[in-house]
């Protein structure tokens, strides 16, 4: 059930949302992938399109299009002792900025948040920098945010990539 009072206020509280987004990014940088997955609602998904303005992940290739089941398989693999592409692992550093609350639906206790992200990753003498515009659909449940969906539009979404392991 959508909650009321303080919960609804949280949907318009930019500081609370910023704390949440920074926490989310920190989980990825600290490779606490299972905790990152737990931030998503049960029907939540994470989507990184391969084309600017890609309308839908249905019927068109995406860099990431993970529901919670796929995330589980993905992160179990990243924990495997013989995941060669992460031996050694990528180190990452996310920076979250330009946070703006875009749309609030108080009846559903949801909001859409726009932000930008920069992620540097490093592995075996190669450092890369990714940048993208991010949209989160957040739901306020009890006293916490849950991610309904997160979409990352990389500025170089249609680039030719070397292997990628850590979500943006």
């Amino acid at each position, binding site marked *: 059930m959508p909650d009321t009072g303080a919960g609804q206020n949280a949907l318009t509280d930019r500081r609370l949302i910023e704390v949440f987004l920074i926490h989310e990014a920190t989980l990825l940088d600290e490779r606490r992938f299972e905790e990152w997955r737990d931030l998503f609602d049960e029907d939540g998904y994470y989507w990184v399109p*391969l084309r600017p303005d890609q309308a839908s992940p249905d019927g068109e290739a995406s860099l990431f299009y993970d529901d919670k089941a796929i995330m589980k398989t993905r992160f179990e693999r990243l924990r495997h002792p013989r995941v060669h592409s992460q*031996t050694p692992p990528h180190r990452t550093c996310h920076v979250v900025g330009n946070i703006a609350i875009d749309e609030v639906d108080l009846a559903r206790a949801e909001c859409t948040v726009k932000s930008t992200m920069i992620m540097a990753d490093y592995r075996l003498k190669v450092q890369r920098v990714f940048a993208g515009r991010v949209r989160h659909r957040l739901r306020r449940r009890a006293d916490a945010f849950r991610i309904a969906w997160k979409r990352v539009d990389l500025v170089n979404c249609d680039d030719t990539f070397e*292997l990628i392991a850590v979500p943006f």
Partner: protein
Amino acid sequence: MNLGDTAEIRSLMRPDRVHRSVYLDPKIFELEMRNVFGRAWVYVGHESLVPRPGDYVTARIGSQPVVLSRHTDGRIYVFYNSCSHRGAVVCNEEKGSTKLFRCPYHGWTYATNGDLDAVSMPRGYGESFDLKDPALGLGRVARVSVYRGFVFASQAQSGPDLEAWLGPARESIDEMCDRAPEGEVDLGGGVHKYLFRGNWKLQLENVIDMYHVPFSHESTIGAGGRQFGRRPGESAGSAISDRGAAAAKWEQRTAWGARDFGHSYAGHQPVAEQIPDDPVFKAYVAALEARHGRERTLEILRPRRHNTAFFPNMTLQALNHHVRVIIPVAVDRTEIRVYPVKLKGAPEELNRGFVRQLNITHSAASLIQTDDLECFRRCQEGIEAQGSEWVWFARGIDTDRPDERGDLVNNGTVETQQRAQHAAWVRLMCAAG
């Protein structure tokens, strides 16, 4: 090394081993661009990427930038992406639709079949300069041929025609297309693009390699040796590993390699395909039966070929439907394009499932292909070592047997397919002319 001497080139590829310089030497790479990619039928794209007149995609034939375009006459043309005047690329986009290609530098324009359309300020040229000369059009690649929507081009003026070149490997394209109720596939579902710091042959040798799977992809194999499910609704995938070795039934897979032009495939596991018990798949089967009847439908659904490698630059996978294109960039740098394959006439939901699954297995952030890319990178780095002059492809060499056509057949986790690739490589690298 004198690369003009064919005996020297032959000495680099022995039946059971390849000299490491074949992966390392930039001069060999240059010769490959001329003699392999300059002579072979090279896959350049698919008709479904350019459905309407004016639609185009850009591609490469080895080092050569080309445009694949559908002209107003409805036919496919492949021409070099280089203005006849000063050489600038006339088409900057990966795909699009246009009436004319216009060079940005001095404004020369070309029709969608590559013919010269107009020269800006033509009076600046003297009378000796014939603007009607066909040689002023964008250079056409010597030969273009289409097989069931798959467009191939050859830069050689003469040689075997496409069907002869493809030989029995054609049947892999047939199998894929026949799985579509309308008999055609659609590659318009986007593209995964990645690069690795390694030689292009590392990818070609890998796709039909059934030996690497339990090891390279160990991180995808769960309890009981089964991989995660690869099809919509599947909770677990194939049995891959049995106590650290390849599962026994993998040894029954067919391995096939064409001795002449180097195509090859790895057969499917010899197990009956279980027709999934879900309404979407049932609707798909019904669509196939409406066209082909029950018996032929069951034959179409029976998997025979898992991965097929069309020498030198295209592969087809039947498990996670896709077409993979290998683009050599430099001796130690390769780009890959992976196109989801949709089956025309199949339920949209089924095709969405294929596309979605391919994200998981073959995007640059995927769970499967990333470990292959890591192995290619490590091969390139490791082959630099002088510890051994040779890279070995001896697995199963004593049990290779000829089929009725004289191609090589074997079973299981052998390197028969790579031996066929290497034989074709030698033939093209050493061919006269």
